[in-house]
């Protein structure tokens, strides 16, 4: 078995027993990157030298001692560019570490590089990147999903052992589903957002993308926790997720299947794979119950009002005055702002800023923003209700498998519907996990989403782990042949 194929938990054992050195491991990963990157283009930035330097002296007894990790390009790492895949942050080097980065460094992880994404996390395919196009490892003519497409593609093609991504409407789970790896969105407030370039402040969360659920639990443990620098992070104790993976009993467990997530329009093979996964849980002893989340049809609209409103303010700071790219020719101050931002932002970002500005403007605030907040509450209540009788929900992560590059980029609304099953989880502030549960006849991965109540990541992780263990899951190696 090649070194690059291993999972974190397997590597930890080898490193601690000194059967493997961090330097060896890191070099092996860089070899894989050199081999595969030209086809995948998952990385925006790689720092080989610094990673090897750190690998030489790292203490392997730390929780993630010696484990290389890739970071999504919107998370701040000191002295690294933080481009968020945008032109407007050309040349910007971050002077500080995000809290999650501090935690990773403290835990002994080795930062390898930064992964590609949709610009400012706005997108579902990583096609909205100003820094290059990332391919789906299972079909190089298809998208890896988004916005954490680079992280998912890197993990799935084994050019990263694990990665961090961010999820505002499905941006960790959907690419994990498209690429065939594991992706987790923690409960809102579980992981500090300090140092994550903000898209929608009330929805964003940083989470792990890994090869196995076990690895995701390890990573989540390290990055979670209250942060005084993030007023929205909660003072909830962090369970030892990796130790709780096998403590779940399926007896008496009720898994809900929300009927609104099994509508017309889901790809036939996706539906089949999900039904099979549900049947599998039933065969293991769980009780399956059909439930209803009646406000589901309003989720996408609610999201695109609230998220864009917050984004319109969060992205206002990008004006080239203190950092980033400035327009070179302008008539006056207003023209300066207009040109700098017009030249620096991609069209999807501009579209969302305009939308967000509109819904907040005088005369429209009540009809859109305020009303959307009320619907958000309703959506949250839908989940609270069903969680009174279910411990978790099972749904498809995406209505379809990875689509072709360029297929949806001319129809923003079609693109928005890609997040239809993941979005409500962000609006409700609860947790969601996507795990691979099959492949289409074309060999494209299919993702199963396991949704849990707020603060119950250990439940969805245990369910995911159980599935992987009982189906003998081994992270596959994509052939990477189709060019």
């Amino acid at each position, binding site marked *: 078995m090649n070194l690059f194929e291993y999972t974190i938990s397997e590597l930890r054992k080898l490193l601690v027993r000194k059967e493997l050195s961090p330097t060896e491991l890191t070099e092996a990963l860089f070899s894989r990157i050199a081999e595969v990157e030209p086809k995948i283009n998952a990385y925006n930035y790689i720092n080989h030298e610094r990673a090897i330097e750190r690998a030489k002296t790292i203490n392997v007894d730390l929780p993630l001692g010696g484990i290389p990790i890739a970071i999504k390009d919107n998370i701040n790492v000191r002295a690294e560019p933080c481009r968020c895949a945008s032109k407007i942050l050309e040349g910007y080097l971050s002077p500080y570490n995000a809290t999650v980065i501090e935690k990773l460094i403290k835990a002994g992880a080795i930062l390898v590089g930064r992964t590609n994404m949709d610009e400012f996390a706005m997108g579902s395919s990583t096609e909205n990147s100003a820094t290059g196009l990332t391919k789906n490892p299972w079909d190089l003519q298809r998208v890896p999903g988004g916005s954490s497409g680079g992280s998912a593609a890197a993990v799935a093609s084994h050019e990263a052992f694990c990665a961090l991504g961010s999820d505002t409407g499905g941006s960790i789970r959907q690419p994990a589903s498209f690429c065939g790896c594991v992706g987790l969105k923690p409960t809102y407030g579980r992981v500090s957002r300090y140092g994550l370039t903000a898209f929608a402040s009330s929805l964003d969360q940083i989470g792990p993308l890994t090869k196995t659920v076990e690895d995701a639990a390890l990573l989540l443990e390290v990055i979670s926790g209250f942060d005084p620098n993030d007023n929205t992070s909660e003072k909830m104790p962090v369970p030892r997720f990796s130790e709780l993976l096998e403590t779940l009993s399926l007896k008496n467990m009720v898994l809900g299947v929300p009927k609104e997530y099994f509508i017309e329009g889901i790809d036939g093979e996706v539906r089949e794979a999900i039904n099979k996964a549900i049947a599998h849980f039933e065969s293991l002893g769980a009780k399956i119950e059909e439930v209803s989340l009646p406000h589901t049809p309003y989720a996408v609209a609610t999201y695109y009002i609230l998220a864009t409103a917050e984004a319109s303010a969060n992205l206002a700071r990008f004006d080239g005055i*203190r950092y980033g790219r400035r327009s070179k020719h302008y008539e006056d101050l207003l023209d300066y702002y207009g040109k700098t931002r017009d030249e620096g932002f991609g069209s999807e970002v501009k579209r969302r800023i305009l939308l967000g500005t509109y819904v907040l403007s005088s005369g429209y605030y009540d009809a859109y923003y305020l009303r959307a907040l009320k619907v958000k509450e309703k959506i949250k209540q839908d989940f609270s209700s069903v969680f009174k009788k279910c411990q978790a929900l099972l749904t498809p992560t995406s209505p379809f498998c990875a689509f072709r590059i360029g297929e949806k980029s001319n129809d923003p609304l079609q693109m928005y519907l890609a997040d239809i099953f993941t979005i409500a989880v962000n609006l409700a502030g609860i947790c969601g996990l996507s795990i691979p549960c099959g492949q289409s006849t074309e060999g494209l991965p299919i993702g199963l989403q396991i949704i849990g109540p707020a603060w119950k990541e250990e439940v969805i992780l245990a369910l995911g782990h159980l599935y992987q263990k009982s189906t003998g899951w081994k992270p596959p190696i994509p052939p990477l042949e189709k060019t």
Partner: protein
Amino acid sequence: MEYEAIIGLEVHVQLKTQTKLFCGCPIEYGALPNSRVCPICLGLPGALPSPNKQAIILTIQTGLMLGSEIAPRGKFDRKNYFYPDMPKNYQISQYDQPLCKGGAVQLYPLAFPKDAQKDPQAQSRKKIRLVRIHLEEDVGKSFHFGDYSGIDFNRAGTPLMEIVSEADIRSPEEAFAYLTALRQILRYGNVSDCDMEKGQLRCDVNVSVKPIGEEKWGTKCEIKNLNSISAVRKALKYEIQRQIHILELGGEISQETLRWDDLKGQTFPMRTKEYAHDYRYFPDPDLLTILTEGELIEEAQKRIPELPEEKKQRLSQHYGLTEYQASVLASDPQLADFFEKAAAQSANKVSVANFLINDYLAVASESETAIPIPPEYFSELSNLVDQGKLHMKQAKEIVKLMVTEKKSPTLIVQEKGLAQITSLDTLDAICKEAIEANPKSVADYRSGKTAAINAIKGYVMKKTKGQANPKIVHELLEKKLHELG
């Protein structure tokens, strides 16, 4: 036609906290540009605000001191607009749930400008009502150099308390008094030093005029760039006249934002830089709701000192001072404190008060926030006079020397040999000499011009370098002159 002015004031006060409102950067006036900044107050990608508890407490404290209603829940909102001095291109402020609502500022005679303190309007004890008090972050400071501008973000993120008054003010003098009274309370509460020169207190005024008796209010104009309390008075005086003049000629007032030019003594329309006034306020999703009940209000209450009105009453009653004397001493909490320490060591409290009010304040520097000499100097001085070692005129001179040389009165008396001469023998001899040296004055006095004694007295005072006790000298001279027959 008689007109009256309707005036409202919007004051921004820089709170006296150690660090900024949403980050740990220290607040330091005069630091090198962009040396007191961090990812948060620079609006770097990924930075998040963390609220400064002390700033919230000081704002609640101010509301309590001014009789406002403290909101049980306060929230922060984003005020969105683009300008180079705004790091995030939105300002974190409070929109519809300010920390404090209502309240009032009590005017008092000494708050009015010196030349208006005896006016009827100064005696009215009027209360100017407040609309609200809220908390927001300050922006950076722009500097213009030829064909480019620079921005210093040291000030960005400083906590500001915005105090909005109702349009209850009716004259430039009342505006002056409102600001003086407000500043007094803020200094008392140790909420801000309110030094306008350092930008710790900024004021914008709204003013309109209307014919007396007319119910409908006129169109108001806003005046900005007022750098001192007296500038506020001057600007209002000018602007009220300007508006009345236009109306008298049959014209209309256009709603404008004006800039006060202190050198020219005029208001000028500002070139509007704001293109849209739709700030698209929405609750800041990065910050939690502030729950004021419990710890925050309790902490704020603990910080409230004896307020000016209470202090004036108490000083007056306890030390036997007049309302005027108590008012002057209470005008600055440090001065009042100083007085009480000095009075504690002197039998003659009123005398101490008088030295402070009449002599110290005359020579005290406006810019010094603390009295540079210890209170004991004043009690010592007062005791020296009571013991007959100094007479009043000498004592008043010594106050000046105490301040400039920072020495105790006893030391000054010793060094300058200023001890009062009261010995009858010594004085007798000098008086005799004075009479012999001033035959004309003596003759004048004897012919009925009693004021001529002053010239002879002057000779004695000159001879004794002012140390002779004037009263004794006067008595001795009178006696001798009468003896001459």
